[in-house]
């Protein structure tokens, strides 16, 4: 099934309240400032090397929808097929029954194939105006890291996100093409997942492209 180019689900939807947002009750402001400071401190300490963990801390229970557009990256053929993946605009629509999505206070995980890339609570920093959360790795990130992640709450209640990760194991692309890998975007106990089809122009090219959905053989995090 082909991607829908920049598919945007236009529908009326309420903005999901964020406990860390200025919209919270006035009595929470002091606590909010303390939490924000702590979150910033944690984010600053953890910014080196991104954050790669063995797996999601909790199993998501609210399963939303994923809207994808073609994406790309680079694969190091001589490096055993380790790849950098760059996604510019994908959308996450939370499940209608969600108990809330809070990118700055919940653990955020990008899962691709057998690998997981995680940001601990507080590492995604919300903008002053609210509604946009950003993480950028500082210094020299390790070989397997989130280089950047940006999450934006859209007017229709969906979350658009873009990211760049390194250290993805795409060694299978050295022997077959295309390959289908499971992908998930997880914020706390909310997630959206689908299979992504990856390809390269040849077995020696360093270019990598995500061009379609697919049904993978399994879901490693299930």
């Amino acid at each position: 099934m082909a991607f829908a180019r920049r598919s945007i689900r236009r529908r009326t939807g309420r903005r999901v309240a964020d406990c860390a947002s200025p919209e919270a009750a006035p009595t929470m402001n002091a606590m909010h400032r303390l939490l924000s400071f702590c979150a910033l401190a944690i984010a600053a300490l953890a910014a080196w090397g991104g954050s790669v963990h063995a797996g999601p801390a909790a199993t998501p229970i609210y399963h939303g929808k994923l809207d994808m557009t073609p994406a790309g990256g680079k694969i190091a053929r001589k490096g055993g097929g380790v790849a950098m993946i760059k996604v510019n605009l994908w959308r996450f629509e939370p499940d209608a029954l969600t108990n809330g999505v809070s990118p700055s206070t919940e653990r955020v995980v990008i899962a691709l194939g057998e690998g997981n890339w995680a940001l601990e609570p507080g590492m995604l920093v919300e903008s002053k105006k609210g509604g946009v959360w950003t993480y950028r790795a500082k210094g020299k990130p390790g070989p397997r890291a989130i280089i950047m992640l940006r999450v934006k709450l859209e007017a229709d209640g969906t979350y658009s996100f873009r990211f760049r990760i390194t250290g993805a194991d795409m060694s299978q692309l050295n022997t077959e093409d295309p390959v289908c890998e499971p992908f998930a975007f997880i914020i706390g106990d909310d997630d959206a997942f689908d299979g992504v089809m990856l390809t390269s122009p040849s077995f020696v090219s360093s270019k990598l492209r995500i061009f379609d959905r697919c049904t993978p053989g399994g879901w490693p995090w299930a």
Partner: protein
Amino acid sequence: MLISGRVTWRRRLLLLALLLGCVGPAVAGDAKALKLRFPKVVIPAGAAVELCAFVRIPLATAFDTDSYEIRHRGVGRGLSLAHFLVYAYQGDDLSGFDSDQVVSSRACLDLGPADRDARQLVASGAAARSRGQLPSGTAFRFTPAGGDRAIGFVLDADFLNGSGKTRTASSQVVLHRARPGSVKRVLQPILERTAEQALLVPPGEVRSTEVATAAWNAAHIGQPILRDAWGPGLATLGAPAPSGDACVLRLSGHFHKRSRFFGVDFVDGEGTVVPSSGIANPFEPGRKHLFGTADYTDPGELRPTPPRLVRTGESLHFGCWVDNGVGAPPRLGCEESDGVVPGTVRIDGGAPAKPCPATGTSPAACPATDPAYPGRSFTGRCVEADVVAGTSPDDEVCQLAGFYYDAASAGGCDLSAEPALPR
């Protein structure tokens, strides 16, 4: 052939080409690639159908291939492939296949002779265009066997037409010849069949080949035990096992419709199963396998990267979990003795029950004698039967399949320092 007028050099060349083409069937020994075509087929709107075609390729000498391309025409816009598999037939009865037919068959088990399960997956690709290549230095070798100056392939295409229109599709597979001087190891087949030898599943049960084999071993003390495993130096039933350390490049399984799970474990030199965080066994909670699959029509493959080294003393243990009437209809067969469930274990010289369509007295389906079953007599009743190993699609097999190559001279699976095989 008479040609009037001046015979130009172009016409001489054309004549020569025509004469060469008339000498006999083209043999592909010098070809740079083998091309396999899945003929154009018609898929009705809304249909989900698995189609199978046999392709016979004339071949005078061995052909080494290390890469392939697959292209499908007509897919997209609602027509898709659940799987497209290319099997190399490795049995002894090439003439048992009909090359002119496209057959609708689950897992292509209704196509070909009794040893149709003697096949190895060499390529696959359900995308409109896909390609594959073997690790550097390795190649498949296709060799015409016996008196056949040909090799055979089974193409298995599982179509799904989600559109509202009848659609047509065709496919082409190109197997590229390996570059001369590039091959350091020819991949050897893994085809191990011991697990099915003692298989017996009574009606109304789900039973594994592990349980069946253990029961048989316990009842036959003093006889060579069945190991249900493949590894260097192990006696096998199927393709010869390696004599020394081996590098497993691909691992898969062969089983039929009543097997609901196929699992493989790695066993170390002490005989201990090495725990795996791989595929969960649906019948044994908490147990996970190095490789596992539940789809007999598309079992998939484990392709370890780098290849999995199996040292002398180590092995790959495998098993099937077979269902005879629990989650699926039971096996039915013609009763041979009053009150005795038909179907006997292969390793004891037994055979599957003669199939019949429905339980009850059925003189038509179960006559007293049948020339197709010499030496056997029947009571006239169709009853629930044991599931045992057999060659028909209604019986079971449980086979470990795949490919390996002999380890490098210095040990391990890195072939970069190995010399190329002589041409």
